């Protein structure tokens, strides 16, 4: 048998190695990555039209953070209500760059990524 032909024994050994090491369990993704994923997804969603308004989001059972709450109360018109106010928020910026951002308010998804 030529050395250039694959060794059946090696082949079986690697099949076994792959099976044994296939699933070591879920690792935690960095919270910075999750923050960037959310920002990228929301940007993509906005490309094809308005986001759901904050009032609709709240009525669907999602709690708003203090900034979204304030925004919902002061923003006038559907366009403003659909605006991604997180794009103006320091919590998003910090969360995209720091693994443990120093932000504390409740119901902020960017804060939640660091906690989970």
């Amino acid at each position: 048998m030529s050395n250039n032909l694959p060794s059946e024994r090696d082949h079986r050994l690697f099949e076994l190695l792959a099976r044994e090491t296939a699933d070591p369990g879920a690792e935690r993704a960095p919270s910075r990555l999750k923050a960037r994923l959310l920002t990228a997804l929301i940007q993509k969603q906005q490309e094809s039209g308005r986001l759901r308004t904050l009032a609709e989001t709240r009525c669907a059972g999602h709690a708003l953070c203090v900034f979204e709450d304030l925004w919902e109360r002061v923003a006038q018109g559907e366009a403003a209500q659909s605006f991604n106010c997180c794009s103006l928020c320091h919590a998003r910026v910090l969360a995209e760059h720091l693994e443990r951002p120093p932000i504390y308010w409740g119901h902020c998804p960017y804060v939640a990524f660091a906690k989970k």
Partner: protein
Amino acid sequence: MARTEELDSPSAYAALREGEKNAKSDYSNQMNQEQPEICQAEEARAGANQLSDRDLVADVLRKDRKATAEFVARYADHIYSYVRRRLIPRADLVEDLVQEVFLAAWENLEKFRGESALRTWLLGIARHKVEDHYRKRLRELQLAEEEESLESEPVSNHDLEEVIAERRAGELTREVLSILPETYSMVLLWRYWENRSVRDIAVQTGRTEKAIERLLARARQQFKKRWYEQQSSK
């Protein structure tokens, strides 16, 4: 300026932060009590249970930012783990590829019918992205080794078999895959961890089956060699 000077004292800064937190908490409680009644029943219903995959997808498609955050929170760990394991030789590309997976998921989310779990569906997208990467890189990389012959000294399988049998191969396997030449790591991951046939790999990379078999043989041999080097250095 006066504010900056005040904050130069650590205790003053801590007191200010505490005050801000309390103020936010008070405000948040007050606002939550003032929500319109029409939403209260729906909030209670939604708060009671985690959204199902279908409901979550429906809300993401409605461009609900909180549902989108839940989508990321629920599945980013699974996708990240998978991509990280499959891109061992190129850890620098993991985060970009995970982002590509989520953006492709958004583009195709309307096609999700709930016939499989959302996690399985997302892993399917991740698998395609990883294989796209393998295909592209193996096409780009020069397989100069094709001209080389295998080392005449075969490497024993004995220790490797023993470690596998004792189920402690995981960490060392990842280490070895990360230090092997990229071509070897990728072809091994593609063939054995992704369980793709030699024929598939050959078709996708535009090479002959024989060339892929030879590449795999060299990759296995190099893997074993590095395995023993790593093991003996510990």
